[in-house]
């Protein structure tokens, strides 16, 4: 990772004042201990300590912090080299660290620069949902948002292409039709069929789809199964809409029989709903063949369209109380103004509102209907740059607080990935959001709101990279148990776990070593645990079990593996990046990355990697990565516990640089759990990146340090992390750009 590369250059006066301790306690010590290899001639590992020591004291912060970290971890000086025994090196390092802490405390607030942020797909979908009160899964077909700094909400990276612009326009039309139904639309009934095979839910006893119902009206759901069961076999087929059973039938099988189940006509409001089907072979009479499986879910409708004025969407929007066709002219303004205010996350200006109303009136005149006029207005709002981009304006050129409206938007996109609700906008309007007590209350309220689910899913999936589950395909021959449902179960475990830490305001150190998790029968069986039955997830205590914390979640273990085998290197790198906040540098150019995907059957993976580490260049990084991965070797490439790998017994022992040893995963985790400060800082950096939508730089270090300190002082509570971020300088302030 290349962030924080810029050095902080202090004015001359500041560093000459430090000359004393630096010159007496750091320069000579590091010259003795390090410059033997890290000099101008050898520059081992790309580091020249001699040069560093002749610069203004501590000018190159990146390098200095790396020195502090590596000396503290015992990685340097390396084994076999001379290590001063009198504690002078430790004292020098401590001085350096404390000096940076002191500078951070004294630093002038510097919030950095945030680029205007285009809404990403998730933010767009949620914003539309919360703007109109209908979930249309809008934006699902938008191009995938690019990642920067590990996240997909980075303003600098998010761009707009013609393809996306076309989709904005088309999607706005679709949304306007669904949100403002008119009786003259007469939507034609259509049949949508979701094939199990196409959804990656092949050969399942349960199917599940999210379907966007295009208009409010009556629909019929249907599902059917494959498999010629033996005569007389009884099955139960059930259909669910939004978790509620809407049809159920017990059938005795005969060859000519209809193999499907239709629901009665159901009145369904427009928008996204979850449709599920389930088949169960009843125990009597016994059936021994291969199990049946569901073939598809089909949705037909709308056959009876709900009159526009009776739909929830219409009633929500048309607040002036007239019947369709009988609206007063003033209605348009009454409807449009609050809509634009929510969408733009601030009150629209007079001319913005006039423009919108002009459009509405023109369309109304043309079509003879206010509803159709408002559809045009709504479309214009949805493609307005004021909606699609989060723009912040600089009230003054220097460093300044952002406005309350801007703060409301930053809060809501951080915690909800959506636009601010009425309560936030109301507080912003009254200028009260800047009040610390009010802000704290709002953060607590927002975290408790179900909308904070967005933070759980989006942040967890990206921080722990469990999002990649959806694109990984473990080799089906080696891991036949891995299928779409297990993939979902894995993700669910990690999300529910994160959510528990958020909702119960637990210590973030639980991520490393919590003695509980969330499992259903399938995943429990995958883990070799008894006593968990049924498809629903529940909290399970993990005493005496070989699992604790996210490192032993199947999701994390799978995303850090190859499709055919585990990779101690990838897992080690994963731990360094996500747990120890010490990402290894990328491999040197044109040296092929270590490939452990090709382990022969004659030597174990471990032996191969150890040979590779005999090379000193490789060893400097792999000496850190590989042992961490070895400690997790008891978990296979889909996270199952094992004691053998092929014909080799698993050896999960290891020694970290600095001499810390472990014999099994639990001991490794113990060692990791002691790295509280590194973990806390790493998590603070990642979450701050996510909250700001930009990469961090050297100037953000004081803020990160302050957040991490605060978290530590508050028992590592999750809420302290969120509050620390929300109250930080970069979250609440902007550096004005000269115009």
């Amino acid at each position: 990772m290349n962030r924080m590369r810029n050095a902080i250059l202090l004015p001359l006066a500041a560093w000459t004042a430090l000359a004393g301790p630096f010159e007496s306690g750091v320069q000579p010590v590091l010259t003795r201990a390090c410059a033997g290899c890290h000099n101008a001639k050898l520059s081992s590992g790309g580091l020249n300590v001699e040069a560093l020591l002749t610069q203004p004291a501590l000018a190159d912060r990146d390098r200095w912090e790396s020195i502090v970290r590596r000396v503290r971890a015992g990685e340097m000086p390396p084994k076999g080299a001379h290590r001063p025994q009198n504690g002078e090196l430790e004292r020098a390092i401590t001085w350096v660290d404390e000096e940076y802490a002191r500078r951070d405390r004294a630093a002038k607030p510097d919030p950095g620069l945030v680029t205007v942020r285009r809404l990403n797909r998730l933010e767009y979908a949620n914003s539309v949902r919360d703007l109109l009160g209908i979930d249309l899964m809008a934006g699902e077909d938008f191009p995938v948002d690019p990642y920067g700094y590990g996240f997909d909400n980075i303003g600098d990276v998010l761009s707009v292409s013609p393809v996306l612009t076309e989709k904005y326009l088309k999607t706005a039309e679709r949304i306007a039709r669904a949100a403002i139904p008119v009786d003259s639309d007469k939507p034609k009934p259509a049949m949508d069929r979701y094939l199990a095979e196409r959804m990656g839910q092949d050969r399942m006893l349960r199917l599940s789809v999210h379907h966007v119902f295009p208009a409010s009206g009556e629909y019929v759901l249907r599902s059917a199964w494959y498999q010629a069961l033996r005569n007389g076999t009884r099955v139960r087929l059930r259909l669910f809409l939004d978790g509620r059973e809407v049809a159920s039938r017990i059938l005795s099988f005969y060859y000519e029989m209809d193999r499907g189940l239709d629901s009665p006509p159901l009145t369904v409001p427009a928008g996204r709903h979850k449709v599920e089907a389930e088949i169960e072979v009843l125990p009597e009479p016994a059936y021994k063949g291969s199990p049946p499986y569901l073939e598809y879910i089909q949705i037909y409708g709308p056959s009876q369209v709900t009159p526009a004025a009776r739909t929830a969407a219409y009633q929500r929007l048309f607040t002036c109380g007239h019947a369709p066709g009988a609206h007063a002219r003033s209605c348009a303004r009454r409807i449009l103004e609050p809509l634009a205010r929510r969408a733009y996350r601030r009150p629209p200006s007079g001319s913005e509102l006039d423009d919108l109303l002009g459009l509405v009136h023109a369309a109304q005149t043309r079509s003879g209907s206010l509803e159709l006029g408002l559809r045009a207005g709504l479309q214009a709002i949805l493609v307005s740059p004021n909606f699609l981009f989060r723009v912040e304006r600089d009230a003054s050129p220097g460093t300044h607080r952002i406005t309350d409206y801007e703060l409301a938007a930053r809060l809501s996109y951080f915690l909800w990935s959506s636009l601010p609700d009425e309560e936030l906008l109301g507080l912003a309007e009254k200028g009260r959001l800047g009040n610390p007590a009010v802000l704290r209350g709002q953060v607590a309220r927002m975290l408790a709101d179900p909308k904070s689910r967005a933070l759980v899913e989006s942040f967890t999936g990206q921080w722990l990279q469990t999002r990649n589950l959806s694109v990984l395909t473990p080799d089906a021959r080696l891991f036949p148990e891995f299928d779409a449902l297990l993939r979902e179960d894995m993700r669910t475990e990690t999300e529910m776990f994160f959510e528990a830490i958020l909702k119960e305001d637990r210590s973030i150190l639980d991520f490393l070593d919590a003695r509980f998790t969330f499992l259903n029968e399938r995943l429990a069986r995958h883990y070799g645990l008894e006593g968990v039955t049924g498809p629903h997830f529940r909290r399970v205590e993990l005493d005496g079990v070989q699992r604790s914390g996210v490192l032993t979640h199947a999701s994390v273990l799978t995303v850090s593996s190859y499709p055919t085998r585990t990779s101690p290197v990838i897992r080690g790198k994963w731990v360094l990046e996500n747990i120890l906040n010490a990402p290894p540098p990328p491999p040197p150019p044109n040296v092929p990355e270590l490939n452990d995907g090709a382990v022969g059957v004659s030597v174990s993976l471990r032996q191969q990697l150890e040979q590779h580490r005999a090379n000193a260049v490789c060893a400097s990084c792999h000496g850190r990565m590989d042992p961490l991965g070895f400690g997790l070797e008891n978990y296979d490439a889909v996270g199952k516990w094992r004691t053998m790998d092929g014909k080799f017994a698993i050896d999960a022992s290891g020694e970290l640089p600095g001499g810390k040893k472990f014999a099994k995963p639990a001991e490794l985790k113990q060692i990791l759990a002691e790295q509280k400060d590194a973990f806390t800082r790493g998590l603070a950096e990642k979450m701050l990146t996510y909250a700001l939508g930009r990469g961090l730089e050297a100037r953000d270090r004081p803020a990160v340090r302050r957040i991490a300190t605060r978290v530590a002082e508050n028992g590592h509570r999750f809420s302290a992390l969120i509050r620390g971020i929300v109250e930080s300088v970069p979250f609440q302030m902007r550096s004005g750009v000269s115009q």
Partner: protein
Amino acid sequence: MMKFLPRRTLLRGMGAAVGLPFLDAMVPAFAAPAAGASAKTPCRLMVVYAPTGKIMQYWTPQSTEPGFEFPRILKSLESHRDDIVILSGLAANNGRALGDGAGDHARAASSYLTGAHPRKTEGADIRCGVSMDQLAARSIGANTRFPSLELTCEDSRQAGACDSYSCAYQSIAWKSETQPLAPEMNPRAVFERLFGDAGADNPDRRSILDLTLRDTERLKNGLGPVDRRKLDEYLTSLREVETRIERAGRSAKLPEGVESPTGIPTSFREHARLMFDLATLAFQTDSTRVITFMLAREGGLRTYPEAGVPEAHHSVTHHRNQPELVEKVAKINCFHVEQFAYFVEKLKAAKDGEGSLLDHSLVVYGSPLGDPNVHDHGNLPTLLAGTGKGKVKPGRHVRYKAETPVANLHVALLRLAGAPVERLGDATGPLEQLGG
């Protein structure tokens, strides 16, 4: 996901469409032809990008004499010998580190069609160069509904960094130095873009666009330069869409019997062929003349169980000359070329004016790395199919001087396609000997 229609339906439909006179009959309906191309038969330009290198000893023919033997990876193209030229010895110097350290794959992708050296960043200040397809789009694409299409079978859904660079550098198409174009992966979305309603039936579309353009201009005032650039991207895109709507009246009718594909096939073979079908359709209907198609991501982790490789592509490419890994890479290489051979066949069968679509196209098939094991940015596997209306002499294997920039090929192709440019990345001039 929508109702299921198998790919067969589309193919069957196309089979019926190909050879029917409707395509020719349609041509006069189009507007003035682009400069340098005759109205009847425009020249099409396409790049098919096969990522992450090749096993070069199975790619490069031994001889440059006529009747040279087709090596293993190219075997499936042998029956098209007289429609292709194999170009050996080209290099992408700007894909090399040049002091930037790790990230060969990210650089390989972004430098391939731009000839430029990408700026190393994880996010702030992305910068590379304008790619050759986008230069073509500006001129020969100016009169079609879509200046260009960008297709892929694998998008960057992968969380995390992309090879030490921002994932934006996974794109090969760059509209400007700062604007990479993300390719579309869903065949259905491509189809709807090509043949769905362009919005001409929305009576308010025009006024909504006008208002939005005004709003965006207004919003730009008082913002810093980076913010303005972001809003400018939106402005440019809006204007492009506006132009397209104006041209909607001239839009292509869908050939009869062709139906929309459904979502994304799980089989790579099916997916790639469906994309090739769509590319053929787009050319046939003159919806566009410029296409880039990435078979997969550079340095990607896709597995190819269909080709007998359940391992991730990138991990087997660091083969260290171990025979079993080399074999796996070779299998993937062959598999990719087989899909391309299907496309060549398809273009050849599609009647276009006096000849076939293939006759009137320039289609590059190539990879931005030679031997992937060492991230070789020289000696790139490259071939050209189609003669661009008889301008290229096919049936040859040409060996160029080492380190000849691949950008020279781009410059030559742009010239042949009727979109000459002065400069492109590190090109030193148009590649010689294409005409024989």
